[in-house]
């Protein structure tokens, strides 16, 4: 979205929200955030970034059957490039009648039950460059039509996503002339059946352009050039959560099939299966532990010529296909203090051959409306490792947040 256009739409949305507020007695909610970062997520070398953001959201019931929902933000420097920007994350109307729910408009539909690593979360997009404290705050909404009906004790949802928004990655292609190719078939479809009970379970089938781009070779102006393409990917996935004794058990797995028509060269493997299994448990004193194991396997499509190996490695790193089988683990430890006044969390992750990641977060409630936030991230591994390439730096952040 163009910056000016985005800001205009956001202004309209907020104005609309205020108007709806008058009719539906629903207050828009605000969040004001100010942060100081020691770097950006693109490894540009910029060592001091000041960012301020204003978020607003509204959820208003127009009648018993109709409600609207919107959320957007504006920021003075959201990715550390000294450029202001904004985004409408959600702006949708929801109709509910006789068990059927219809949602039309821009919306965020994250899938999966594992902690942070979600193989089934195929269709939602993120801006990984965003300087945000929470992992879910970098999500990008997309125009979607969702229909949900009750079925066999659960809910069957159908999704049509005519809008395509790609995952925005920190730039790793400096100095290369790369063309970004919008997929010819931009829309995505999915069916998801979800049921809650002793075992919470969801089965998802989806077909969508891969939100994460692939570096490819293609004819550009009569010559072979580099392009970032988004091949279609089909997925069948399952995610579940249940309790076994003192433990919460979470499992999530997806099988992928990539359309290779749009991909030529630079790729020797595509993802085939990803699975995450995790256990979580709490201990007295509000200690909470989540441990997960990760498996990713890939399918050969190569071979790649020797002079394309470097570019192929970049694809492999981003898509987790540098080996036929990649193993990994994550561990998160959370401690909450009385009254939720203070929260701390340390998360570590490693992937075989992909480096490691450590993040520490903490927040302290200074008053009813104001919270002090601290964040530190450390990535280890070479520059061409998964973590090294996706976020090739170390960061510290101190910030204040008012509102939500």
């Amino acid at each position, binding site marked *: 979205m163009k910056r000016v256009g985005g800001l205009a739409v956001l202004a309209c949305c907020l104005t609309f929200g205020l108007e709806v507020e008058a009719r539906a007695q629903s207050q828009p*909610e*605000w*969040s004001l955030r100010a942060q100081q970062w020691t770097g950006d997520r693109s490894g540009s070398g910029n060592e001091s970034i000041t960012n301020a953001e204003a978020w607003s959201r509204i*959820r208003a019931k127009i009648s018993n059957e109709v409600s609207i929902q919107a959320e957007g933000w504006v920021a003075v420097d959201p990715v550390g490039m000294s450029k202001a920007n904004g985004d409408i994350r959600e702006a949708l109307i*929801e109709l*509910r009648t006789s*068990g059927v*729910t219809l949602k039309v408009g821009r919306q*965020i*539909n*994250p899938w*999966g*039950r594992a902690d942070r690593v979600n193989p089934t979360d195929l269709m939602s997009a993120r801006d990984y460059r965003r300087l945000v404290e*929470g992992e*879910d*705050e970098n*999500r990008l909404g997309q125009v979607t039509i969702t229909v*949900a009906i*009750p079925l066999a004790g659960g*809910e069957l949802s159908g999704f049509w996503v005519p809008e395509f928004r790609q995952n925005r990655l920190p730039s790793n292609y400096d100095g290369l002339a790369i063309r970004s190719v919008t997929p010819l078939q931009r829309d995505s479809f999915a069916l998801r059946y*979800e049921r*809650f*009970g*002793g075992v*919470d379970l969801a089965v998802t089938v989806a077909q969508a352009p891969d939100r994460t781009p692939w570096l490819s070779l293609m004819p550009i102006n009569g010559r072979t050039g580099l392009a970032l393409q988004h091949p279609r990917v089909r997925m069948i996935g399952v995610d579940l*959560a*249940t*309790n076994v*004794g*003192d*433990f*919460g058990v979470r499992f999530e797995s997806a099988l992928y099939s990539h359309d290779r028509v749009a991909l030529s060269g630079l790729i020797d493997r595509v993802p085939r299966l990803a699975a995450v299994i995790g256990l*979580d*448990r*709490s201990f*007295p004193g*509000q200690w909470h532990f989540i441990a997960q194991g990760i498996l990713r396997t890939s399918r050969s499509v190569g071979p790649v010529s020797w002079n394309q190996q470097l570019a192929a490695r970049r694809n492999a790193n981003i898509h987790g296909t540098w080996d036929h089988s990649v193993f990994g683990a994550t561990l998160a430890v959370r401690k*909450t203090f*009385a*009254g*939720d*006044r203070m929260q701390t969390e340390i998360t570590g992750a490693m992937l075989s051959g992909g480096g490691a990641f450590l993040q520490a977060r903490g927040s302290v409630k200074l008053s*009813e*409306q104001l*919270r002090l936030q601290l964040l530190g991230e450390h990535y280890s591994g070479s520059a061409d490792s998964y973590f090294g390439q996706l976020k090739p730096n170390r960061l510290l952040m101190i910030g204040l947040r008012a*509102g*939500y």
Partner: protein
Amino acid sequence: MSEMTISLTRRGFCAAAAGIVVFPLEVRATDINPAQIMQASYQATRFKNVRFTAGLSLRSSKGAKQNRSLSGVAKIVDGGALARLMRFTTPADMSGVATLTFERGSSRDDLWIYLPAMRRVRKLVTANRADPWVGSDFSYGDILGHKVSDWTHKLSGTERLSGGDCWRIDSVPLTSALMRETGYGRRRSWIRKSDYSLLNCDFFSVSGQPLKSATFSDFRVLDGSNGKVQPMVMTMQSMRSGSTSTLNFKQFDIGAAVMNNEISPEALNK
């Protein structure tokens, strides 16, 4: 059943609600079945359908206050489980946070939470019922309710509180697992004789140390014919931290039906 045994029939409830003395004044403590008293007390605040709004006030030992408001629905669903969905409306950083509890007894309970930032419904581990409910001094176990049949009960005496004459009953978890899950080694309850209302409850740790103390007040007879009474104010004080949480019901409507799709995990984010 002896004449000393407490009748839990509808007739007994009606009589109790009407303030009629249903038990001989000279009742000997050993003849009273404390489990039946606890069951009557437990049933007295269970309604088929409820819609409510409430304020939740948290006060730290240093006097710092946080105020939250919420709305919710509760319903006795198929199989007799009590389901309760509560959604926070203020302040902004809590707005949209919703919890759903299904109280079926012991490990078959279900807990879910919806966090707007994640936009996902998350199943919580039932064994974590000792965890604070949204940062308050109430635990998830307190919100779920302590199913009478999961505890053993012993009448330890009678006592006159400002709210009326009470039975004092000590309850101990039947299993060590439940003791670990709730964090409670014992509860001491004061049940008002006239209407089975729970006036006070003290909670003790597994090692026997005082943990928390709950007081219930502003009782309203909402369904007298069925002996249903609701405390509009519930206060929980932590003995360890000195903090206090007060749940103050503003509205409590038992007349309107609650649909099943309003009180399901799918409803948490709607």
